[in-house]
């Protein structure tokens, strides 16, 4: 039977998943991106410096990743040499945004798949947040209205955590995490100007002063976030893993993994990075080659040619194209399906033995959970890899603040060239992000973004290979084919962002 489990909620943007279910097994899955704006066309003919601002509006959840990727692409096109402070500030802004994003994803976007909200009705303590929540849920449920206590209730049917204290603790952390993610965002806004959509990020650095005032505020905020990560976020993930160990096996994508590397350790764009770049194809590691990326559109709503390289990209929407089922394109690396995101980032780094801390953390948590590194390709693996990223990034940000020279500049000096072209690659929280700019006559002639969720939520390609998420869904057993909480958990583990994917 065919079941559409969309609209999927607790993600960014408009996503449906059309499934075919036979004997409670998903035999086919189509990932359907349902919103299109056409950023690349809107950017054409504009001043190149508009790009790091406009591309942030692709996504209000990870705007900073777009600002950074665009800045890198422009730095590449302008041949800019960036002052050390400028690069450090880019890192401080982007790194804090990652921390926020992981917390938002785990607590607000994923936890309600596992936590039983109704446990709050049994709360007898005196914590004012929980009392408020309990009374509100009680009142709403008793009101007899058709939709009690939304947005928490109603919810999908399925198995939730049974232990009352565990559930109540998780709800308390759900509320606390909101305050903590604000702190992470405050930290990035110190150098970014504001969040969402930073105005102070530019190619060549950041306009903010490198003062002790700003640095000390930043540090104290990140310290609080770090504490929450260690004391609550990680134990909560392990608690979910204990309650649902089968999710170390469920939701495996079938293809390769890619990371563009995150947080340069020096001012140059080709500096070593905190997280190493690379592509894992059939278990073997390769260097990333942007020329090996092509975007197929056989099943996407565009009439422009299929299989174009990034620098050749064009875009002609065809909303009524008969073979198409989504606005998302299908990028492929050497023709292969690729998963990007936290699991890919950690696996790519781990395979190279690049960052010692990542290796230790993977080994440690794998030991605690009783799994192998290959189980990172799973629902719980993706959650765990976010937490590992968070630990590594929080430590790095605190060290990075010590490298700011309070007397040195934070911005490169520049004049914009008449022409030029550049690639800018980084890791958004959701995975590998690539921007490409081509400038002619002082204007943007072509702009292309190849975005994490475009890889993960891609449809079938020209050779009919399903995308990463589609492949992870196929073969999954669902207890209630009508609602499919299992499929929802798989989708959420990828943390899709459809605004990004289609843009």
């Amino acid at each position: 039977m065919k079941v559409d489990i969309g609209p999927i909620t607790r993600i960014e943007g408009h996503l449906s998943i059309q499934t075919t279910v036979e004997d409670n097994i998903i035999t086919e899955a189509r990932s359907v991106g349902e919103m299109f704006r056409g950023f690349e066309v809107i950017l054409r003919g504009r001043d190149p410096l508009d790009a790091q601002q406009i591309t942030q509006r692709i996504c209000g959840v990870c705007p900073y990743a777009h600002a950074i990727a665009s800045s890198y692409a422009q730095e590449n096109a302008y041949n800019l040499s960036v002052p050390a402070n400028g690069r450090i500030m880019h890192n401080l802004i982007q790194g804090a945004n990652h921390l926020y994003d992981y917390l938002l994803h785990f607590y607000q976007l994923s936890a309600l798949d596992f936590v039983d909200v109704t446990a709050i009705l049994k709360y007898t303590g005196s914590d004012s947040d929980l009392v408020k929540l309990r009374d509100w849920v009680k009142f709403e449920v008793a009101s007899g209205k058709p939709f009690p206590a939304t947005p928490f209730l109603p919810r999908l049917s399925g198995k939730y955590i049974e232990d009352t204290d565990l559930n109540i603790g998780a709800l308390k952390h759900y509320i606390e995490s909101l305050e903590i993610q604000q702190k992470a965002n405050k930290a990035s806004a110190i150098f970014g100007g504001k969040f969402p959509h930073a105005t102070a990020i530019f190619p060549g650095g950041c306009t903010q002063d490198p003062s002790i005032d700003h640095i000390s505020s930043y540090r104290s905020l990140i310290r609080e976030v770090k504490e929450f990560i260690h004391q609550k976020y990680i134990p909560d993930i392990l608690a979910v893993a204990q309650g649902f160990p089968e999710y170390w096996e469920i939701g495996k994508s079938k293809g390769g993994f890619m990371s563009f590397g995150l947080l340069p350790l020096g001012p140059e764009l080709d500096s070593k990075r905190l997280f190493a770049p690379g592509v894992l194809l059939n278990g073997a590691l390769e260097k990333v080659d942007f020329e090996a990326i092509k975007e197929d559109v056989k099943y996407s709503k565009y009439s422009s040619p299929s299989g174009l390289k990034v620098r050749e990209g064009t875009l002609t929407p065809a909303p009524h194209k008969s073979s198409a089922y989504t606005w998302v394109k299908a990028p492929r690396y050497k023709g292969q399906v690729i998963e990007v995101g936290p699991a890919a980032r950690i696996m790519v780094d781990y395979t190279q033995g690049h960052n010692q801390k990542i290796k230790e953390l993977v080994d440690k948590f794998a030991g605690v959970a009783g799994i192998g590194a290959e189980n990172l390709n799973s629902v719980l693996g993706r959650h765990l890899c976010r937490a590992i990223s968070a630990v590594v990034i929080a430590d790095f940000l605190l060290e990075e603040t010590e490298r700011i020279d309070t007397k040195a500049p934070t911005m490169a000096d520049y004049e914009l060239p008449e022409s030029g072209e550049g690639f800018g690659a980084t890791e958004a929280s959701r995975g590998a992000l690539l921007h490409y700019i081509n400038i002619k006559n002082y204007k943007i002639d072509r702009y292309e973004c190849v975005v994490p969720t475009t890889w993960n939520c891609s449809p079938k390609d020209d050779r009919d290979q399903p995308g990463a998420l589609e492949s992870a869904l196929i073969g999954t057993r669902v207890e209630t084919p009508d609602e499919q909480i299992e499929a929802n958990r798989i989708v959420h583990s990828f943390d899709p962002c459809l605004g990004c994917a289609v843009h």
Partner: protein
Amino acid sequence: MPDLDRRKFLKMAACLSAAFGVGNLPAPVLAALKKIDGAVPTLVYLQGQSCTGCSISLLQAETPNAVTMITEYSKLSFHADMSATSGKQALALIEKYLSGNAGEYFLAVEGSIPYDMPEACVMGHKPFAEHLLDASKTMVGAVAIGTCATHGGIPAAEGNLTGAVSLKEFYKRKGKSPLIIDIPGCSVHPDWVWKTIVHLVQVGLPELVNGQPKLFFDRKVHELCPLYHDFQQEIFAKKLGEKGCLFKLGCIGPDTNADCSTRWWNGRQSWCIGAKAPCIGCASPIFAAKKDFPFYRIAKKGKE
């Protein structure tokens, strides 16, 4: 103040704000206004061509915070990023409101509407535009959240392929004129939205200027900018990162109605001009609209 007096006072305040700000509204709008007086809005929050930045910004609210707003003031009934339910159950919930079978509600809309290409934004096999038409028959009013919803924003910028328009423009073209409170900003400041809702709950409709709450959009960023003194003394930054008024780098503060210069952002910790970044006019109707009106004025090689 005893409870009864307070209620009377609130009623009076609502009447006064209506008298000053919204005297010339069409009759159906005024009728709708009577209804919301003193009522708690139930918010059905839908996203069109949006980046979710406004929703994310709303979670950054501190006084009151988002949990308080959801449990005490707004009665948020559906939000794609927060709701536990999804799929058919979520659609049924939305449809129940939009068909008028779940009581009174305010619609909150984030994102623009692809007028020329309805397929460019679909929710549950139905174009977003059609959901909006359903809502127009049943909602008390709407809050347009963010510059995309109030003026089209970047999806409507020159050269766009979908014919994106604001909520007001969408309804206008469909011959409808529901009550709409516009709250621009790319993204919106959380206070601008939540405090408008607190105002709706406690007092009634806030006074509007150009359809926007006067509380927040009465004055220009420029008027209360801490660099206004530099502006008057003609102390201008000539390069990014330099000290001085940012006017010569392209600051659009003189053309943008918003209270960023006094409210600041992210818990009053920072804001654009505080980080020496020119205001790009994100709350202005002209934001990003034209290709040949760039955000910045920066030297170009070989050009003057």
